[in-house]
């Protein structure tokens, strides 16, 4: 046992590099769809896809944290709606005051630029609401010992209910939004949409958190072997709780991006979005039983879904039928996941065969 391990070149290792494999799949998809419709592979469209997928990536980063500790959160679209709605209502209320004030002062140009609560404050508010939802989910799961899927299934409906309560049954429209907020997702820098930059910032923060901080590594430890983590003095419950809070904050932020992008906040905004996000994580190689997953993989997984979604529209395979589009999306996601499972199984079988009896 004390002999030094022999390092041999192992082609299986390379094949098992999921990020590489996924990048190839992604390139192949872009190439294939591009062959059918060259407009798809245009720089413009690819930038558009990236911008479109940015929100999904932000959410997938949070979902990865939750999945790493062996939990799951299916309430995220409700959290997005509640966070955006809360911030939206505040914005709407303060907006009318700002306008009235401007008119009273007799300023001519004031009516043209709508002002309201500063955007950073709104973002903070949304993130706070999201964090609150994550905290409740996390408490239910880690201290209440409720099964994650059940806890977040239940909280999802409660959060949608709260969203309805906050909205008073009304949606927030473009006319209720400050100019800052409307422009939030419309700016661009170096050719990339501001959503892409925000996503990149979140990506980098999470990357550092998960690779270089104690707490980040403990997410892996808890998911890899909770009992061992407990025995080595890691507070498993607190770590699980924190993963849900991170998810909540990112969902709050993503809700604001989504609302600004859509120019509209409804109480059931983004309904069903959680499935894309979970699928992105799974395609990206995050284990749903916890303990393993890479942040780059998650981003690639989300991009794969983004490319599929956009590609299906560009190919016009399904006419205008949302129904068929969804069905094909689902099928493609399943195929991607099943392929992954088979690759994994094939690897395990190879390992078994290599064992000498």
């Amino acid at each position, binding site marked *: 046992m004390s002999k030094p391990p022999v390092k041999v070149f192992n082609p299986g290792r390379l094949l098992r590099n999921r990020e590489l494999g996924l990048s190839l799949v992604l390139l192949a998809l872009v190439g294939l769809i591009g062959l059918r419709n060259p407009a798809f592979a245009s720089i413009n469209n690819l930038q558009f896809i990236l911008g479109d997928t940015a929100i999904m990536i932000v959410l997938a980063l949070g979902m990865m944290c939750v999945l790493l500790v062996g939990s799951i959160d299916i309430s995220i679209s409700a959290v997005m709606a509640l966070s955006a709605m809360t911030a939206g209502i505040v914005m709407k209320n303060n907006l009318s005051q700002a306008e009235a004030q401007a008119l009273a002062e007799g300023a001519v140009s004031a009516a043209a630029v709508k002002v309201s609560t500063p955007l950073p404050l709104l973002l903070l508010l949304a993130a706070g609401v999201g964090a609150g939802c994550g905290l409740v989910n996390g408490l239910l799961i880690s201290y209440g010992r409720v099964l994650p899927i059940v806890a977040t299934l239940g909280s999802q409906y409660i959060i949608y209910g709260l969203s309805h309560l906050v909205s008073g049954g009304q949606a927030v429209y473009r006319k209720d939004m400050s100019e800052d907020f409307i422009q939030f997702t419309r700016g661009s820098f170096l050719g990339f949409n501001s959503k892409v930059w925000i996503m990149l910032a979140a990506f980098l923060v999470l990357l550092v958190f998960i690779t270089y901080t104690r707490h980040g590594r403990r997410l892996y430890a808890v998911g890899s072997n909770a009992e*061992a983590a407990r025995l080595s*003095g890691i507070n498993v419950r607190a770590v699980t709780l924190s993963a849900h809070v991170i998810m909540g904050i990112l969902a709050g932020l993503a809700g604001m991006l989504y609302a600004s992008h859509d120019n509209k906040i409804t109480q059931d905004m983004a309904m069903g979005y959680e499935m894309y996000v979970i699928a992105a994580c799974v395609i990206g190689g995050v284990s749903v039983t916890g303990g393993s997953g890479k942040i780059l993989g998650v981003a690639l997984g989300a991009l794969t879904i983004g490319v599929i979604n956009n590609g299906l529209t560009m190919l016009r395979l399904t006419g205008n039928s949302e129904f068929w589009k969804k069905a094909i999306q689902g099928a493609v996601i399943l195929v991607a996941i099943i392929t992954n499972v088979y690759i994994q199984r094939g690897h395990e079988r190879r390992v078994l065969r290599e064992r000498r009896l």
Partner: protein
Amino acid sequence: MQEMGAHPAGDGLVLEITGVTKIFPGIRALDDVRFDLRRGEIHALIGENGAGKSTFIKVLTGVHQPDSGTILLNGQPVRMTDPLVARRLGIAAIYQHLAAYPHLSVAENIFMGNEQLSGPLQFINWPGTRRRAAALLKSLGSGIDPAAKMGELSVAQQQIVEIAKALSQDASVLIMDEPTAALSQTESEELYAIVRGLKEKGTSVILISHRFEDVYSLADRVTVLRDGRYIGTWDIQEADSALLVNHMVGRSIDQFFPQKTAPIGKELLRVDKLGRTGFFSEVSFSLRAGEILGLTGLVGAGRTEVVEAICGVTRPDSGSITLEGKEVRFTRPGEALGRGLALLPEDRQKQGLLLPWSIEDNVSLPTLEACKKHRLLSRPLISRLGSKAIEQLAIKARSGLDTAESLSGGNQQKVVLGKLLSSRARVMVMDEPTKGVDVGSKAAIYQIMCDLAAQGFGILMVSSEMPEVMAMCDRAVIMRQGRVSAILDRADFTPEGILRASMPVERKEAAGA
């Protein structure tokens, strides 16, 4: 037996534990246990399954809080309120299975919970982590790559990583739980050398082991626990194995194991060249009516995998199974049961019982067909089955309506046995039937097995406990690394012979993998 008073307190004693009691619902896991550990001593703690060794360790490492008792560390009373406290005090434990993070790297496994940080933001210093990990491993004479994935190492290598982890925390007391359970002879000897090295540096070691070989080659003293009680402590020179076994079992072996007199009849089960890729291959043996056939070997030798393949839990890739003269191939355990082959699984709580269900519901589960009246299940028939099992197996319960989880380990195992009996199977496959069962229930289970054999059942018993195999079995099939290494008749049973056949043979190619 030596008394505690023989050592003046504080004089070279690192740990002194007195009167420790830990009660779990329904059991006194530890009852007034004492234990002491000298500086630079290796003190073995032995006892049968369920004797309270693991609970004792968990109390020492702060995982469980004792209900009463005192722990003195270097003469000072300490309270281990959680594992972190124990670690800060320099007590580290190497658990048998559960301590590793298979998804993470070796370096990270070593420093998890004790991360190497640097910079104003206290980020993890990865190069430093890997360097320190490599240095620690090197100090143990090992060249394991710190960047390797823990889950891809051999058990022996993982064991070394765990020791490195304990060293990284400057542990003065090291607790090792069954460190050699899955190691080959050479690997064990290498581990012994490492542990002796630690001892020379002044580390005190508590060694828990089933293998007397470990105890005799390492320990200075040995303490025996039985049924959660302290039995005694001996210097290793004065403790011969017969004495230890007697104290572990609580009576002399001949009184403990029933006399088996069942006549051996015709062949019931025949396994021929059975194989399952990656788990076992070319396994052949036969089982006759009235016979108790042992299937033994080290942990990981493939015993459980073999019986699972026989009983249809998994499917073999090659070979054949013949049951009462007919070749069979089961795709699920229910099918095997229907043909007269019943399995008592290794983990009774997860695989053998529905814990929240009542005794009678558990017992009747395999034979619900027989409990029907007018095509519907009949409560009275189910109850009758339950009462019959309680009476026949002397299950300690108020009625058949008691839930399985309310019973002690031994009685739970009897309920699983009740399931097998109600099924009218002819061949019983029992995987570690006395694991985690108290001594009284053990004797009862042995008696039941002998009675069953006398009634013409064939019993295939998987067991890791040497005394059990030697006393109960007519023949023993010994497995090593997925293959049958020997089949011994009762007359040829010797502990050395069984151990020799169990020990893995070294392979040059396997060394680095």
